[in-house]
């Protein structure tokens, strides 16, 4: 007994740490850093750095900045009044509307793209109802911008809204009593205090718009070459892998710089004001102007967020156009064909498996991703929970995959793994790379929160480290583990960029299948895209709701 204890004390600090890091680091080494080094090697090749390639890259970079900046501006335009609405007023259906604005952020990009296509596209509902109102939407810059606003408004609402509601109302009252009118109160009191939160949220929105892929590819088309889209095009369409590598390195540097600036702003933003109870600022709209503002804006918000989301399932049940090559009469109207067709394997259809198999593939990949990312994330989070110098070095390395785009991960796999590309493991590997930082960041604070006394008490009562882990850590960690698992699950389910590059055509995932169907002519293909996108939307929503349900009884255990 004495000897074992001594041994444990002797073994613990370094060997345990190395043991913890062994698996996650070797995974990252193989699946991330090796492909990354191949990409860098390809980029630094003198044949890649030609003036022609550099010119093209700078054009692409410029456009990426341009569209991200425009998207961010528009998002602020909708987000700031919304944040004000939620932070200041109480009205019926408020919490529901607030939840609604947050939904798009969690939805896969293909679902959002399909939703907008179902509403505003040339084959969508509005176009079919009013055929003469034809206006171009798909393939325009507007489509991209609006989808980005749709996605990211919730960030502004949350971050700026929090800052607004924790604003000390006395400040405002004091300014007014000194004779300042509303405009001056805003300009001289409120805005300066909100500035860091506006800046931080805008930067976050900008980062998401900068790295956006699915929305741009599906709604804008290949005309709008952002870095992400251009990397994809240079891999699969106009093959030029060195150029693709160069673009991904530029992309990586940009995201890292933006993230660094963001982190600096956030650390400064948190010391701004003394937080007040949020309740004190919220009241019912009183004056006519306030009533008009709340009603009109709540209506605007709910239609903006509800229309694309509801068009999708609606469109999946209506036949509005002929099938590919169907010359006879078309039975327009309600139909369940698009769902039934998912179960049929037709030779000459887009897939040679019944399309519903994509759902099984997606679920299988998502399950594997959950397992893999928990398996890798737990030891890493354990080590990071009590950081030593080693962890301070390793932490940014572990988070690096977050800065590289999904398309870049796919490119890395393609140029690194050659014959291994047949392996069905590659897709969950790529998904795990995307999910791992989220999993670690979810587990790490939970692990750190476990009182050390409890562990010591258990150990002094003779429990082995494994028993301590099982009886003390695990119950406390259940909630965090569940949250991390859902994160990994939903990320895998909706992942599009990397999967598009590395998935085998016979094992499509749902997002890849939707992209294939969307790009094909005829009512049947389009209808199946709508049906699958509806399924994916429901799956994602269900997994989010499920976790919410799990969390309530679990939260009592703390």
């Amino acid at each position, binding site marked *: 007994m004495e000897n074992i204890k001594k041994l444990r004390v002797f073994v613990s600090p370094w060997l345990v740490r190395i043991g913890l890091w062994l698996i996650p680091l070797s995974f990252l080494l193989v699946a991330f850093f090796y492909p990354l080094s191949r990409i860098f090697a390809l980029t630094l090749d003198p044949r890649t750095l030609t003036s022609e390639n550099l010119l093209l890259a700078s054009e692409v970079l410029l456009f990426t900045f341009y569209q991200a900046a425009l998207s961010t501006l528009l998002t602020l335009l909708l987000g700031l009044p919304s944040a004000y609405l939620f932070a200041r007023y109480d009205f019926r259906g408020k919490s529901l509307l607030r939840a609604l604005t947050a939904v798009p952020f969690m939805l896969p990009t293909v679902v959002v793209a399909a939703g907008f296509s179902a509403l505003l596209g040339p*084959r969508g509902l509005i176009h079919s109802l009013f055929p003469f109102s*034809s206006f171009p939407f798909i393939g325009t810059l507007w489509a991209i911008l609006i989808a980005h606003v749709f996605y990211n408004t919730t960030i502004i609402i949350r971050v700026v809204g929090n800052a607004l509601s924790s604003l000390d109302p006395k400040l405002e009252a004091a300014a007014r009593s000194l004779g300042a009118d509303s405009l001056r109160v805003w300009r001289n009191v409120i805005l300066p205090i909100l500035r860091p939160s506006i800046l931080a949220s805008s930067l976050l929105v900008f980062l998401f718009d900068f790295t956006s892929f699915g929305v741009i590819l599906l709604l804008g*088309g*290949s*005309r709008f070459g952002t870095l992400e889209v251009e990397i994809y*095009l240079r*891999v*699969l*369409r*106009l*093959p030029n892998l060195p150029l693709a590598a160069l673009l991904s390195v530029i992309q990586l540097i940009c995201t890292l710089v933006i993230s660094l600036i963001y982190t600096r702003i956030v650390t400064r933003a948190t010391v701004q004001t003394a937080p007040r109870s949020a309740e004190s600022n919220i009241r019912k709209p009183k004056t006519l102007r306030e009533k008009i503002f709340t009603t009109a804006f709540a209506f605007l918000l709910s239609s903006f967020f509800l229309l694309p989301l509801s068009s999708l399932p609606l469109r999946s049940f209506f036949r509005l*156009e*002929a*099938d*590919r*090559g*169907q*010359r*006879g*009469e078309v039975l327009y109207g309600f139909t369940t064909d698009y769902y039934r067709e998912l179960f049929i394997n037709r*030779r*000459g259809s*887009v897939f*040679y498996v019944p399309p519903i198999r994509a759902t099984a*593939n997606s679920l*299988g*990949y998502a*399950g*594997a991703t959950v*397992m*893999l990312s*928990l*398996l890798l994330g737990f030891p890493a989070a354990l080590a990071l929970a009590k950081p030593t110098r080693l962890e301070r070095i390793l932490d940014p390395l572990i988070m690096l995959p977050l800065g590289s785009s999904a398309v870049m991960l796919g490119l890395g796999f*393609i140029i690194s793994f*050659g*014959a*291994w*590309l*047949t392996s*069905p*493991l590659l897709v*969950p590997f790529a998904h795990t790379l995307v999910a791992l930082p989220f999993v670690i960041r979810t587990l790490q604070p939970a692990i750190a929160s476990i009182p050390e006394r409890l562990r010591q008490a258990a150990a002094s009562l003779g429990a082995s480290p494994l028993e301590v882990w099982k009886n003390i850590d695990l119950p406390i960690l259940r909630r965090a583990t569940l949250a991390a698992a859902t994160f990994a699950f939903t990320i895998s389910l909706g992942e599009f960029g990397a999967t598009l590059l590395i998935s*085998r*055509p*016979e*094992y499509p995932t749902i997002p890849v299948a939707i992209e294939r169907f969307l*790009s*094909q*002519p*005829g009512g049947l293909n389009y209808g199946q895209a709508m049906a699958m996108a509806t399924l994916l939307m429901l799956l994602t929503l269900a997994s989010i709701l499920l976790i919410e349900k799990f969390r309530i009884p679990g939260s009592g255990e703390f």
Partner: protein
Amino acid sequence: MKHTLLLLLLILAACSPQGTATQSAGPQTLTLMTHDSFSVSEEVVKSFEEANHAKVVFLQSGDAGAVLNKAVLTKDAPLADLLFGVDNTFLSRALEADIFEPYESPRLNEIPDPFKLDGSNRALPVDYGDVCINYDKAYFSDHDLAIPQSLEDLTKPEYAGLLVAENPATSSTGLAFLLATVAHYGDSFTEYWQALKDNDVVVVDGWETAYYTNFSGSSGRGPQPMVVSYGSSPAAEVIFAEKPLDDAPTASILGPDTCFRQIEFVGILKGTPSRALAEKFVDFMLDKQFQEDVTLQMFVYPVNPRAALPDEFTKYAQAPEQTAALSPEEIAAHRDQWIQAWTEVVLK
């Protein structure tokens, strides 16, 4: 922990490829990778499957360009045993990437030499067709509009927004039409495309979408009455019409250099484990039965002169007297540069 590992292994096992199990007792599976427009009669495939105790799977993964690029990227881990649908415009990319194994099919003797563009028989010709502009007859008569007769006519203001073409970066049909304009205008083809762009030419990614969604003369009843398609497409409209038609609802513009001849090839992908069966399938594709099937399934002409043409085909399919000409060497040397120039002018 043990459970987790076990579960992980189970899940990984569950999502591992079912396809690998084909080496067992059942029929051998042969996978043919091809473009979205590939089509063959069920009986024809069945006859091959029964004769060879095999199952043929068609992996359709995009337009011809996309399929070839995918095959090149995965050449160390081939997606299929055969690839059909590389045409003369993309042929050099396939040969340079070295994705095919040479195979001297005995059937090659029956095929005229001008079709055999690869001397070492890595890519074997299967069919050919002429990429031409189709127009919707009803639209032009309803609108009292004269049919354009040449490439130049297409830039006239009365035809603004009426033509849909394919992106040559992704579609071999689009590339063929781009090559027709290169053959006609030489280096100033970009000026011609600028004029077409100013005249609101619509560009989509693939022939499927152009023909079935955008073209007003087909099932999609789309907005454009002119489409870059094939000289044989009008025959397809007659054959597939619900009610018998006396005349084709569409026709082709047969002007100087408005059409470009496309030859499609099949090749055995390097590293296939089923080389013998793949060879048999190549022979089968070049033989009379399959060659006669391609006309009505894909609306192209068979390269094997032994194959007979159906009546509708001889009646409604229009073949230009002369097609725009560019040598394979010229195409190989400049293709990517032409596509890049086109992209700069038309898409940016």
